[in-house]
């Protein structure tokens, strides 16, 4: 497994992401500076969190025009896995690779704490190792994590199974109190129509070792391997 970690000016979660992939999952990982646009030699791309371009204009608004994002677009079109974490999610939405937009938290405060997520679908490269309904304990750290999508598109996403993670309480219920930022329907992560591109606001790379308070983030990365194995098996047996 060889994973690309694009780095923009202002990205600051790239080292944690690299650590999770290289030292915890023990895969190959490479930083890719935002000016490079060829990602086809990788098996997966994980766009890290941070404040690319200082969040100027809107979070991710400028990063989406970096050359590396052309590479991400091409990579996503090839059907291979792309994960955007926090600012990575914002960049993917601005680039139109994921539906919706991320806005300022409804409480207007930066939220920095652990939350419970419920896995809504296991049909993505970042949830394949989990079970539907499973709870994950992951940290969030964001000022603009309020996911917005219009009513019609929201209904479609729910019907198509494109909601990947939802904020819930410890009992697995998506209550208002469990929603840290005002996101529509407590949505914490979504997938594109082909389900190979996923964006999530919480940080799985900060929860890969129990010393950090939770190792549930490993499930997100382990899913990549599971998904790729399934894809290869499917190709071997001639499945579509």
């Amino acid at each position, binding site marked *: 497994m060889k994973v690309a970690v694009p780095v923009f000016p202002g990205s600051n979660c790239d080292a944690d992401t690299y650590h999770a992939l290289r030292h915890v999952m023990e895969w190959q990982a490479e930083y890719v500076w935002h000016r490079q646009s060829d990602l086809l030699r990788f098996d997966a791309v994980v766009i890290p969190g941070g404040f690319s371009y200082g969040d100027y204009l809107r979070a991710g608004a400028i990063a989406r025009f970096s050359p590396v994002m052309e590479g991400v677009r091409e990579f996503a079109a090839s059907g291979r896995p792309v994960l955007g974490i926090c600012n990575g999610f914002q960049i993917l939405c601005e680039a139109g690779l994921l539906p919706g*937009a991320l806005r300022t938290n409804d409480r207007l405060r930066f939220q920095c704490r652990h939350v419970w997520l419920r896995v809504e679908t296991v049909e993505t490269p970042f949830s394949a190792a989990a079970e539907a309904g499973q709870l994950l304990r992951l940290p969030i750290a964001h000022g603009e994590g309020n996911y*917005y999508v219009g009513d019609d598109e929201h209904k479609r996403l729910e019907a198509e199974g494109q909601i990947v993670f939802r904020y819930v309480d410890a009992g697995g219920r998506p209550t208002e109190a469990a929603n840290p930022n005002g996101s529509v329907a407590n949505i914490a992560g979504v997938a594109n129509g082909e389900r190979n591109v996923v964006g999530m606001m919480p940080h799985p790379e900060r929860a890969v070792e129990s010393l950090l308070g939770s190792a549930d983030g490993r499930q997100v990365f382990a899913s990549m391997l599971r998904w790729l194995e399934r894809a290869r098996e499917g190709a071997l047996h001639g499945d579509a």
Partner: protein
Amino acid sequence: MQFVATIHVTLKSSVLDPQGTTVARSLRALGYDEVSRVRVGKYLELRLDAQSRDEAEQRLDEMCHRLLANPVIENYRFELAAAPVKEAGGQA
């Protein structure tokens, strides 16, 4: 020709604006009970060169749609004016 553009980027009415709500609350707390709604947007100023006003409008519209506003959550409107001329020779 040079133009000066002023651009307003505002949230679509269907989108909640927590900043606006907070500002309205703050104004009322200061004694301005008459305020019922606040929406916070962005204002940008931009200078651009173009062969004609039509060209300037078209290019500016593209800029707004591609970068300056996020069409998922924002609307935009702009005004274009010919840039004031500073040369003593008086070209239009």
